[in-house]
Each structure stands twice: as C-alpha cells, then as structure tokens.
C-alpha cells in the first residue's frame, strides 16, 4: 500500500508524542530512585540527578527483607512456570492431536471458564486451602498450575498444534509410536516458539500477581515482591526516593525478561488466531 509522505510524517509525529507520554512515567521513576529527598523537592523539577544517589537501592532493599521476597517470588514463579508448561502442552495435545468422542464439547465447556470472574471462585478456594491446612504457604499459588495451566495457554497452544499437519502423527502411529512419543518427539520440538510465548506470559502473570499472595500469604517471611513493595509503601509512604528505588527493583526483572523475549510476544498474539 502506498502511504503518502505527509501521512507518514503525521503518523511519526503522533507516535513520537504518544511514546513520550508512555515513557515519562519510567523516566520519572528512574530519576526519583537515584535522588535524595532534598533533590526530589527542588522546583522546578530536575530530570538529571546531581549527584546520583545509588545508595538508595541499598537502603531500600535492606530496610525491608527484599532478598527474602525475591527468593519467595522466584520459588513461586518457577513452580508455576514448570506446572503450566507441562500441563498446558499435554492438555493442548489431547485437545488437538487425538480425535476422541466429545473432545470439542469438553473443550468448549472448559473454555467457558475464561469468562468467569475470578471473584466467584475466590472464597471457596480460599476456604478449601485453609481447611486443608495450606493457608500461609505457597501451595495455593503453585499447585493449580499443574491442573491444566490455564485455559488461555491451552487455547493458544491448541491453535498452534492444529496448524501442524496431522500426517506426522499418522506416520508415527503406523510405525508403532504411542501418543506420548508423538507428544515428546514431534510436537514439543516443533512448538518451541509457542511454548516460549506461554512461558513468557506465565512468568509475567505470576511475577505480577497481587491478589493471590495477598489472600493466601500472611507472614512477612513468605511475602512476594509485589506484597513486599505494598508493605514497604505502608511504612515509608513519604520516602519517595526509597519507594521509587524499591519499585525500580521490582519492575526491572520484568522489563529485562520482556526485552529478551520481545519478538515472541507479537508472534504469540498472532498464534491465538485473533486476526480479523
């Protein structure tokens, strides 16, 4: 399609303005995180700190045990990642590569759970975990990932599996392979990029989860980064320098993971078949 020069210039300029608006909060976060309070309060505001106060990070991350929060978050995220990748690929295989009676109906019923507001299942799930004695442990946050790994992920992987020609399986079955071998030897290696997409989405969702840890975790020593940051805000609410340093530390891993896996994201959305 031809796009006139004028139109491209207008588009470029608009994007420049919008991008500036999207990036300013990040800049404001970063500059506040390396200033001391007196610098923060200077009017008109300074964008480049003079001098840089990198010790804010050290202080912010030690007054509250962020190391422990970091470790807890890692344990939960790793557990959820493993469960989700294993169980969603297996389920997607069963919903796409094996033709069994009632398959599409079962899939449709399971998909309906995506529309369900989480608030409806929240209270009984909480009561269930509490009665089983798992309140204030990581189990309620990790174990569900091993049961399907979320319908969105299954849906995404199923779309991908269905785009792979079925002939592979037929040939393998004739050669005496079983379904597990087809899953392990053929489908998994072919769907590497889709699995990476699922892993990325899962990492971010688990890292960013706030309500889950808020409800199931009680002791400070078991808090995640998200909860810890919120607690930190409660006790240091006027210490904007430290608060911004702590926030930067929570945001950074997400941004890094995103930048590394970036090219897979758009691909992932395209995979879901959500094109016109």
């Amino acid at each position, binding site marked *: 399609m031809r796009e006139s020069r004028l139109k491209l210039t207008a588009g470029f300029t608009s994007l420049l303005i919008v991008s500036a608006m*999207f*990036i300013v909060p*990040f800049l404001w976060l970063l500059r506040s995180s390396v200033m001391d309070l007196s610098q923060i309060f200077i009017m008109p505001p300074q964008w480049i700190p003079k001098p840089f106060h990198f010790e804010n990070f050290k202080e912010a991350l030690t007054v509250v045990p962020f190391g422990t929060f970091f470790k807890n978050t890692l344990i939960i995220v790793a557990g959820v990642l493993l469960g989700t990748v294993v169980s969603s690929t297996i389920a997607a295989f069963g919903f796409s590569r094996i033709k069994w009676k009632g398959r599409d109906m079962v899939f449709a019923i399971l998909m309906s759970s995506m529309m369900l507001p989480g608030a409806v*299942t929240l209270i009984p799930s909480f*009561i269930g975990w509490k009665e089983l004695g798992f309140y204030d442990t990581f189990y309620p946050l990790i174990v569900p990932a091993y049961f399907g790994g979320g319908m969105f992920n299954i849906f995404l992987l199923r779309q991908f599996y269905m785009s792979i020609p079925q002939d592979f399986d037929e040939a393998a079955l004739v050669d005496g392979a079983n379904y597990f071998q087809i899953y392990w030897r053929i489908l998994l290696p072919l769907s590497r990029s889709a699995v990476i997409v699922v892993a990325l989405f899962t990492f971010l969702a688990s890292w960013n989860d706030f309500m889950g840890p808020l409800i199931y975790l009680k002791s400070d020593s078991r808090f995640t980064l*998200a*909860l810890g940051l919120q607690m930190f805000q409660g006790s240091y609410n006027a210490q904007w320098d430290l608060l911004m340093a702590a926030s930067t530390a929570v945001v950074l891993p997400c941004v890094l993971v995103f930048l590394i896996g970036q090219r897979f994201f758009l691909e992932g959305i395209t995979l879901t078949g959500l094109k*016109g």
Partner: protein
Amino acid sequence: MEISANTGKSVKTVARKSSKRERKALFYGLLFTAPAILGFIIYTLGPMIASLYLSLTDYNVFKDTTSFIGLDNYVKLFSGEDDLFYKSLGTTFYFVILRVPAVIIISFFLAILLNMNVKGRAIFRTIIYLPSIVPAVAASMIWLWLMNPDLGLLNMALNWLHLPTSNWLFGEGSVIPSIVLTTLWGIGGTVIIFLAGLSGIPKSYYEAIDVDGGGWYSKLRHITVPMLTPTIFFNTIMTIIGSFQVFSEAYILTQGGPNNKSLFFVFYLWRTAFRDTEMGYASALAWVLFIIIMIFTVFVFKTSKSWVHYEGEKQ
C-alpha cells in the same frame, strides 16, 4: 457371492479395527486432558457450586460457624440496608463506562499508527507495550507519585502551563477518572491484539480504494473498521470483564477512598470476605457480580450479530 461375502468380512474387520482405534483414542484423549478437566472441576466448577451454597449461609471462616439462612444475604443486599453495596456498584459502573470506550478507541488508533510504515516502528511498539508488563503494584506506586497533589509531576506540569491543578486520586470527583488514566498506561496488550487484527487485512482491499480514488477516511470507514469488528468485539468483551474486576489499583492507590468514592465492587467484596470475614455475604456479592458480567457479555454477544463482520460469511 464370494465377492460380497469377502467384502462383508473385511468391512467387519475394518469396523472392529476402527472401534478399537476409537477406544484407544478416547482413552489417550482423556488421559492427556485429565489434568485440565480435573482442574476445571476442582478450581472452577466445584468452587462455583460451593460459592452459590455459601451465599445462602452466614459462613464465617475464622470463627468456623455456618448456618443456612436462605436468601437473607440477597435480601440484605437489595433492600438498601447495605448502602455500600449500591455505592460500590455505582462506582464500578461509572468506571466501566468511562474505561471501556477509552481503552477501545485509544488502542484502536494507536494500533493504526503503529501499523504504519514509519521509521522506528519497532521501537514505538516496544515503548507502548512496555508499561503493560509492569506489575500492578509498581505501576500504582509510580502513579501515586506522579499524581501526588503537592509534588507530583502532573500538577507541576499543569502549574507550568498555568492550568488549574487537580487533587487526582485524593479528590472525590477526580478519583475515578484518575484511576482510569493510570490503567490507560497499561493499554499495550489491547493495542497488540488490534495490531494482529490489522496485519490480517489484505493490502489489496486498500489498493482497491486507491484505484477508486478514495482517501484516508473511506479506507478507515469501509475497510479497517468493518474488517476489525471481530477484534473490536473480542477486545470489548475482555475489557468489560477486566474492568468490572478491578482490584489491585483500588487496593493500592486509594483503599476505596476518599469517602468510599473509589469503593470498587471487587475491593468491597475482598474487604467483606477477608477483613470483616463475612464469607457468606461476600459470596452473595460474588454471585451478583457474576450475573452482572454475564448479562453484559450476553448483551454484547447478542448485538454482535448486527455489527461484527466475519470474513467468508454471506452478508
């Protein structure tokens, strides 16, 4: 005779073989999907039924007492005895009505911009997507700071432009629009879905308009919008469902304040269940929310027949 007998025999063998194959497929199909099906029963279906039952009791998890009270919770909700119920409902509706059109319209136009063949397109895409991966807690911290009435960047900018400043999250009138604004920063996911939709529109359609001498507006009106209606539909449903359930922002930014002006429904539900430990009553709240979201979703689905255009379908 011989031939037909033979055929009959082989048909039987084939039938037996195929039914054996079918049974094998059913067995393995169920085996592979068993964790997901179990998960659905344990984490969705079971809790849903339990929640419906709980909503008919005055269950208190910390005191561990339960008694069946029939529809009393629902009567209390709708009789007006609990004025916070209507207040939180109104607040949430206001938020949804403000946020859903804003998200859809802005992300639609951002996607169109990002789909243009401009220099640095990849960088623009990254910048606009990036905020959507920032954890809600951290994003809320950043916005609390940006919207600080005395020292925040937003009021400084307004001052500098000689415009009236705002109390943002601390003003009764401005709190909901302010929260909408903070969530617009994380619009990237919706933009990307629109982008994927845009990439599925064949270029030849636009060329046809070029040939006809049509301009920018007629392309938007006659191709882009109609071709994107399935994506608009999907994004609208997901944004409605998400907006009704806003929680983290309310919890961190305002705790429902000032003067309960940002008492979102799910925040009120959480407070009732986990702070006041009235889990029966909170379950009734959850079911009311469920039914409201269902009504909205069904409504959008019903109207979709008249405005969503699927390719390959006869008009």
